[in-house]
């Protein structure tokens, strides 16, 4: 068991270990393991060591160190990092080096964390298996023939293999929770608006949320407390106080009401996954929680509504990739429209094109009301499901993913089957409520299973209390 976020930060703060030593060890481990896992697209050796030296320098001068002192952090390649390549897993951004840091990166650096590299992802965060990365998929450390999930699969693989104790991903429809589930790590999607998105390459702006992953609940909570909070550069960023998420991990769960939605345990759920999740809920009951059934009747419509709304927003967001200000340009005959078309055809992969086309179609004249507006109305029904359920319970527990990690290639040719693998994570995304995945054991074949915990808007604290209680029985295991 490698040390977690809090162990490292406290050891560096008290001088038991130098940040340079921690960073050098992390970089060595990345060098040894990354060729087999392809978790990182870019390793920031020199920059990481420089940052670590700066942290050690501060300590030597007697300055106070931040809450993530010397902690190696892996960053999803959709998050802009000044001076470090940022591709969003796409050929259209190959070689792009942002001139600024995302707000979350500024905050990590201010907290004395060390950015060790940029992690692999499905192109523009569109995918559930990492197979849509233009640079080849990341692999699951539990079985390298299997997916680590997506789209933040590289971040999850890096954390699961202990290449870094924590990472940032982004979660639009489950892109942090599902990889966390498939790799046996902690993944937290905060309330929509909790964490500023300035510097996150946009996929679907009404859903995207930067989300931490870690090897333990308290570590993930600490990272969340560093990156959360209002930023005037993101108009969707909420101006609300940041709770003490770490303290919440120590709260008693006795008497908390857990809702179990029947819609999440039906057709399509792997039997072993269902059994593991039910066992975790039984454990929480034994710890004093009150377990009761709830109903989220519009669950089965969430996939259809999501794929209309997310692709519509993506088709608009990705219009900026036009070969003019950054990224690839293909200019066959020096004519503007032809340059746009050729650049985008060469730069985008198949799934990105598919979603841009779908999104453009549902927004096009004659179809807007039937598809886009209809999906927005259904989104309201999904939100109301959660509002009604949360009148009776404090959190909702379910499987995070209907199956454990599947084989690379298994669903690659069937877009609809791939979309359906997000069936349990999409509803919370549409509703904007916080949700996280924690490990709850493994299948007979040794693949991790994740429990999803969903809470009321801005009530990450209660969610974390339940997660921390669960962790006592089901800690993150290390892959062989």
């Amino acid at each position, binding site marked *: 068991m490698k040390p977690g976020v809090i162990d490292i930060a406290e050891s560096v703060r008290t001088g038991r270990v130098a940040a340079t030593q921690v960073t050098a060890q992390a970089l060595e481990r990345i060098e040894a393991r990354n060729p087999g896992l392809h978790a990182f697209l870019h390793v920031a050796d020199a920059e990481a060591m420089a940052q670590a030296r700066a942290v050690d320098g501060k300590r030597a001068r007697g300055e106070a160190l931040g809450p993530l002192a010397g902690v190696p952090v892996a960053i999803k390649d959709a998050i802009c990092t000044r001076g470090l390549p940022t591709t969003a897993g796409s050929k259209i951004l190959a070689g792009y080096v942002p001139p600024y840091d995302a707000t979350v990166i500024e905050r990590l650096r201010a907290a004395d964390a060390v950015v060790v590299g940029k992690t692999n992802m499905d192109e523009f965060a569109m995918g559930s298996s990492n197979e849509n990365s233009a640079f080849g998929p990341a692999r699951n450390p539990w079985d390298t023939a299997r997916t680590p999930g997506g789209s933040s699969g590289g971040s999850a693989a890096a954390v699961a293999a202990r290449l870094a104790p924590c990472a940032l991903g982004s979660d639009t429809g489950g892109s942090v929770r599902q990889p966390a589930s498939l790799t046996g790590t902690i993944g937290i999607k905060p309330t929509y608006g909790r964490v500023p998105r300035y510097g996150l390459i946009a996929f679907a702006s009404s859903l995207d949320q930067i989300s931490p992953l870690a090897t333990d609940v308290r570590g993930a909570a600490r990272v969340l407390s560093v990156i959360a909070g209002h930023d005037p*550069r993101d108009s969707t960023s909420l101006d609300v106080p940041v709770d003490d998420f770490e303290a919440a991990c120590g709260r008693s769960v006795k008497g908390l009401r857990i809702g179990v939605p029947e819609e999440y345990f039906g057709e399509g759920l792997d039997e072993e996954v269902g059994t593991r999740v039910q066992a975790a809920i039984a454990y929480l009951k034994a710890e004093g929680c009150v377990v009761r059934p709830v109903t989220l009747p519009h669950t089965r419509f969430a996939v259809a509504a999501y794929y209309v709304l997310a692709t519509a927003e993506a088709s608009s967001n990705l219009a900026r990739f036009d070969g003019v200000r950054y990224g690839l340009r293909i200019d066959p005959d020096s004519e*503007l429209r032809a340059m746009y078309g050729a650049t*985008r055809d060469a730069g985008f992969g198949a799934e990105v094109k598919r979603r*841009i086309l*779908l999104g453009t179609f549902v927004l096009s004249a004659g179809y807007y009301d039937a598809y886009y507006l209809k999906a927005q109305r259904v989104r309201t029904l999904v939100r109301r499901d959660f509002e009604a359920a949360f009148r009776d319970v404090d959190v909702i527990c379910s499987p995070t993913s209907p199956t454990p990690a599947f084989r690379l290639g298994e669903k690659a040719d069937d877009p609809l089957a791939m979309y359906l693998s997000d069936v349990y994570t999409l509803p919370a995304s549409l509703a904007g409520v916080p949700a996280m995945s924690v490990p709850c054991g493994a299948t007979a074949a040794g693949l991790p299973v994740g429990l999803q915990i969903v809470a009321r808007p801005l009530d990450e604290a209660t969610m974390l209390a339940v997660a921390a209680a669960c962790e006592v029985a089901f800690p993150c295991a290390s892959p062989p």
Partner: protein
Amino acid sequence: MPARIDVHHVAKLASLTLTDAEVQRFGEDLQTIVAYVAQLDELDTADVPPTAHVQLDRLPLRDDVVKPGLSHEDAVAQAPAVEAGGFAVPKFVE
């Protein structure tokens, strides 16, 4: 539900130049996905307001004050083509 999605038209709207094979493949994929999405019609949503965004009522606006931003040099540093300090594009007017 449309009889047939006109992929050429949609691709043009999206500024995507597709190969014939892509038009064929994406046409089939889109048709399958749109057929799946048609299940939303089972729901009567006539009286349900649309959700564009979950928290529009709470979105704060920042003060309209000029602050330092990217330097001119940084702003054009990643452009595929730069002329006279600006983004250079192919000709688009005669």
